[in-house]
């Protein structure tokens, strides 16, 4: 009788344990971030504006306004270009880096360590360094061009060049992590597969396309998710680098949102932009996970 009750108690405890274990973490995450998402979503249905005294419920007006607003639509387009550019450049670079790091024997560990370094630099510091690299009069790039008797390019003054520099800076910042994720995928492939493939006389490109790529596709999915979120949300890098200019050429969604919420103090409109970014992010990640089928 007693034993039975004890057993029941134990069983209940055993059932509760995992929930207790995850409780502290979930309290933090949902107490802070979950709250922010919910409150932000709610806020986007009002017209809270620090420049105005009263606030009212406006339902979807903020969203309707946004999709009719040239500046927002511009920043949406700029964001898509920026994300597409960063993701494609980032994926190509990280794949190349990962493949060659896998092959590297001498200095292999050193190079792997070096590859991750940019990941540890803050976005602000990255932006400062790249602005210094590309600015007109003091930048290394232009000084090299001039030394080579080529024309200097005003990278930050020309809309397309500025967007290109922003993509490059962002890529520098986000590639390291993607590289190591891909590397982990390649390393987990059974080396015997390579050997048998080489014995069978498969060419290098065949090995790559027929063995490596399919096998690391889950890892590709994860690095794609990482690359595109980091780019979609990028703010720390662009604000000090170009401030969204010239002519709003680098005003991606996160920067647009910052300007709306913190320069013009339209909090609700800013929150509406947040919701839109969130929807984009969820949609892209669902898409990637579907394509690359990362079940585990």
């Amino acid at each position, binding site marked *: 009788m007693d034993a039975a009750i004890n057993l029941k108690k*134990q069983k209940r*405890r*055993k059932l509760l*344990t995992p929930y*207790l*274990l995850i*409780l*502290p973490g979930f309290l933090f995450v949902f107490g802070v971030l979950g709250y922010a998402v919910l409150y932000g979503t709610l806020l986007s249905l009002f017209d809270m504006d*620090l*420049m*105005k*005294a009263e606030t009212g419920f406006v339902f979807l007006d903020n969203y309707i306004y946004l999709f009719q607003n040239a500046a927002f639509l511009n920043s949406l387009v700029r964001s898509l270009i920026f994300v597409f550019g960063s993701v494609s450049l980032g994926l190509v670079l990280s794949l190349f880096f990962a493949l060659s790091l896998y092959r590297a024997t001498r200095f292999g560990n050193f190079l792997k360590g070096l590859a991750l370094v940019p990941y540890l630099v803050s976005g602000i510091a990255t932006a400062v360094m790249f602005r210094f690299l590309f*600015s*007109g*009069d003091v930048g290394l790039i232009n000084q090299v061009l001039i030394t080579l008797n080529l024309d200097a390019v*005003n990278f*930050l*003054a020309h*809309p397309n060049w*500025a967007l290109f520099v922003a993509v490059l800076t962002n890529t520098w910042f986000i590639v390291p992590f993607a590289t190591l994720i891909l590397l982990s995928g390649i390393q987990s492939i059974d080396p015997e597969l390579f050997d048998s493939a080489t014995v069978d006389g498969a060419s290098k490109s065949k090995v790559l396309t027929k063995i490596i790529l399919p096998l690391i596709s889950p890892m590709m999915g994860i690095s794609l998710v990482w690359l595109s979120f980091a780019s979609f949300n990028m703010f720390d890098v662009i*604000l000090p680098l*170009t*401030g*969204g*200019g*010239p*002519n*709003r050429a680098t005003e991606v969604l996160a920067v647009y949102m910052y*300007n709306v919420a*913190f*320069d*013009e*103090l339209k909090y609700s409109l800013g929150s509406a932009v947040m919701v839109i970014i969130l929807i984009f992010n969820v949609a892209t990640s669902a898409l990637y996970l579907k394509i690359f089928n990362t079940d585990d």
Partner: protein
Amino acid sequence: MKKKWTIVLLMTLLAVIMVACSGGDVDTTNDNEGDNNGSDSSVTNDEEVTVQVWFGREDFIPDDAFETFHEENPNINVEYDVVPLEQADADFLRNKNAGNAPDIFQVFHESTQNLAAQGAVLNMSEYYDKWAEEDPDSYNKLLDQAFDIVSYEGDPYGLAIHFGPYFHVHRNDWYEEVGLDPAGPETWDDVIEHSRMIKDAGLSDYPYATVGGSNAPPLWFSSMFVSMGGEYTDSNAPIIDSEAGRYIFEWHQTMMKEELMNPETIAWESGEMRGGFISGNVAYMPEALNIYPIIQEELNYEEQWLPTYQPVRSGMNDYTPASFSWPMLVNSDTEHPEAVTEVLKYLSSEDISKQVALRYQPTTNEAVLLSDEFAEAHPWFERVKEGFLNSEILPSHVRQPEIYTILNDFKQEALTDLEADPEEVTKRYQELIDEIDE
């Protein structure tokens, strides 16, 4: 199994304790909130009151850190902090909603109109009347601008202790070299023509420097607009669809087309413009008094550079220089307006504001501006004194941030779309401004 529970509890507790410990280090400003609530609004009794002040830059803090003030007013305790001007208005409003905003805070002058319109700041008329009556000596030393800058519909909502008009500096040594009158350009057309001569003489690749970046507010641009005869509506919106609006657009187009301005101008913030002038790469920039000491470190005043008023549009005779300011505003929720007035009196007093004026920004205290020490610290002041004393604040709209966004877009279009028709562009941007100004 009981142990498992305990360990979970312990670990959670540990986390909580660590959070709490970090809380122990929390800044004390919040703790003082309690003092405010408890005390009475009158200063005449012996009860101690606390006045919280946010300065927008560290340089605005008086040298003695309120020591003399505390000696003179033993019952008023001033606590101050530095909240950057760039975020002061937003931080103030957010903290005000939460009930812990400071009594006095410093903002860019453009914020005044909006804060007053939404009732977030306090009308100081009655306290200033008392001040004028009780201590006319100190009150009368202040220029009218001290009160005008912070006025909304005729009433002051704070005090503008420091301000400065935009002037213009040029390289008079280069002017002499190319055979021009070293006194400098008189009109903006002169600037174009003289720039060409300076460029042709190989003295500078890009003679004119200004701030074209989208991160910087269009302050320099607006001061230029005023000097070109630009006007504002009664509600302080710029009238771009005008002679001046078309001229400023065309002027920038011309300067860019002929490469008289650096092709990177559109990415420039004030630091790059100033760096260009100070390092001897450009011939002109539109800058104010506070930068001159930095110029002086590298270039010799009167031998290499001179300050003048901004040039005017051809056909105009003169203009009133436009100034900008970083006024102190008073929280409408303050419980000690008398104590606040004392703090403002102290900050604007001759002794205290002189300290700041000698090393940083000029003041609205006329006695300081006319003092020998000021003349010694700023030898160039003599040349622009009259314009300085008569300058008028750059008009700002209730929805100034949005106006600024439009002006910045307009400015950047002038720097990039060199073939655009000024007529069409100014009309287009005027419509955007009208939308906001309705």
